[in-house]
């Protein structure tokens, strides 16, 4: 039998097989699957519903309308809506961080070497990790949006159901970027402790130095400087523009451009590093 006729010549062969392998680990393990759904819901109800920022503003002072104050600071009269959108970014960040860990696990369990000995393209190995984290995050985002709506998310004026597509588009971009970043950081690592340490070091600072939980304008200058370059801020803003603000298209375009460029650069770096470091 002629082997060449049995083989597909696509440069991307194996991409779906490897992506699906990662995804199966998740959706075939009911406990993990359930937790990834419950976790954002808990966060959202804890931070969004329990911490009612609006209640801090005294309503018995004449001339002060808590709704108006919130609208002036947050851009929406409802802190929960503000918060719920931040949760989407938050969850994305957490999910993509695990893609860095799975590289290290595959290395330690010998699976990486096995894959490296097959004709799969080195970039496909990295892309499959990126893609699986992205698909997982998008699924989680869908859950969060659904739950947020059930819990009373207030859509902005002029909200169009098609805006949801835009939300998924920006989540797709940020996930590509963030998971490529974490893979690039961990691609040479042989110890599982390294990605854990990296995650612990940067996840919360990255989160708080963005507009996900608190509006940037009210941060100290130095933190504003960080938040203004943090791609998570742009992602959160894009989702807010699409869901809960009356959409400012100029801002939205800027958000998409920024996150898009970030994703393109970091994914490229991830692929270049995979060429360099997967061949030791």
């Amino acid at each position, binding site marked *: *039998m002629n082997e060449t006729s049995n083989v597909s010549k*696509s440069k991307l062969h194996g991409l779906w097989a490897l992506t699906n392998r990662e995804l199966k680990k998740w959706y075939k393990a009911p406990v993990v699957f359930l937790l990834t759904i419950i976790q954002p819901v808990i966060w959202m109800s804890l931070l969004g519903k329990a911490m009612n920022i609006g209640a801090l503003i005294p309503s018995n002072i004449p001339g002060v309308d808590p709704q108006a104050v919130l609208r002036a600071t947050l851009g929406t009269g409802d802190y929960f809506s503000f918060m719920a959108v931040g949760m989407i970014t938050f969850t994305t960040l957490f999910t993509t961080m695990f893609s860095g860990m799975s590289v290290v696990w595959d290395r*330690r*369990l010998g699976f990486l*070497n096995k894959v490296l000995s097959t004709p799969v393209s080195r970039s496909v190995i990295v892309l499959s990790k990126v893609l699986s984290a992205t698909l997982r995050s998008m699924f989680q985002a869908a859950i969060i949006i659904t739950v947020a709506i059930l819990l009373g998310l207030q859509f902005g004026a002029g909200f169009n159901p098609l805006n949801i597509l835009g939300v998924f588009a920006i989540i797709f971009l940020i996930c590509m970027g963030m998971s490529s970043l974490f893979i690039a950081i961990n691609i040479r690592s042989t110890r599982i402790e390294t990605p854990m340490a990296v995650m612990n070091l940067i996840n919360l600072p990255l989160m708080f130095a963005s507009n996900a939980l608190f509006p940037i304008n009210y941060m100290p200058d130095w933190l504003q400087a960080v938040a203004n370059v943090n791609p998570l801020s742009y992602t959160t803003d894009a989702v807010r523009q699409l869901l809960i603000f009356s959409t400012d298209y100029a801002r939205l375009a800027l958000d998409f451009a920024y996150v898009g460029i970030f994703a393109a650069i970091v994914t490229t770096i991830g692929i270049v590093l995979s060429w360099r470091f997967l061949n*030791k």
Partner: protein
Amino acid sequence: MSEDVIKAEGLTKVFNHNLVAVDHINFSVKHGEIFGFLGPNGAGKTTTINMLITVLKPTEGEASVLGYDIAKEANAVRNIIGVVPQEYTADEDLTGYENILLCADLYGIRREVSKKRALDLLELVELTAFKNKRVQTYSGGMRRRLELTCGLINRPKVLFLDEPTLGLDVQTRAATWNYVRTLKKEFGMTLFMTTHYLEEADALCDRIAIIDHGKIVVVGTPEELKESLGGDIITLSIQKDVDITGLVKKIEHVKEVKKENGSYMIKSENGEVTAPLIIEALRKEGHVVTKLSLMKPTLDEVYLQYTGKSMRDAEESREAVFTQRMTVRRARR
């Protein structure tokens, strides 16, 4: 095409600029043979195999598989080789069948072809009944067989086995050897394997290279290696206390005679043929043989002779120790 399926010249791997794992080794593997790298853990076996399967780049020197350079034509090499790693790489949450199909996808094999091949291979290693069970439920031997099928899904011309029976119990190990032999016959491949089990090298390999501290110490068939020690050892005692050294030395095949504590140690090739000759010659001279034993040298002695020590593990990196432990733990389940 030359007869050499694998050829290595001056192949060297240095880690972190100072740890020489493989030190200028030369060897060639002939078509259709099972070639084994024998040595303790940390001797450089896995590093060598990882270079040949294009996972590691050599620091110096070169090697080729079926004429393709492992560094410059890595993708061509990857298409024609099969790899069965030391670790259990099959995904625990997937079934055996799903795992083989995943391997097939990595080679870009079309689904309709890979389904048929997967079923055939499962049949060959007698896993058909378990194909839809999760790998979690498999025993060590079954996992090993599953790994074998994954390494064969692309119909490789050369199969690389890294410690194929690490951690398995003696019976499962022997059974695994049989599967390896069956598969080799079925597909007519050349095999390159590493092992630190002497009996495995002896039972399975056509030729062995003993590797120690990253260097090849000696290469040969198991028989040649054993004979290179000077042959079998016949120990005998006779009734009367007279010196028969001169008499025995004249017998064909006898190489060396030593008297020790009243018995004679005779080194000879083809001990089983020489022993009756010795008895016959002694009887003619009126001597009565009271005791006789024949010992064939094992690879243990060969190993001791060439490396100056018995098999023991060299120092190893933290990760290598971790992976081996994981493999052994899973094998025993």
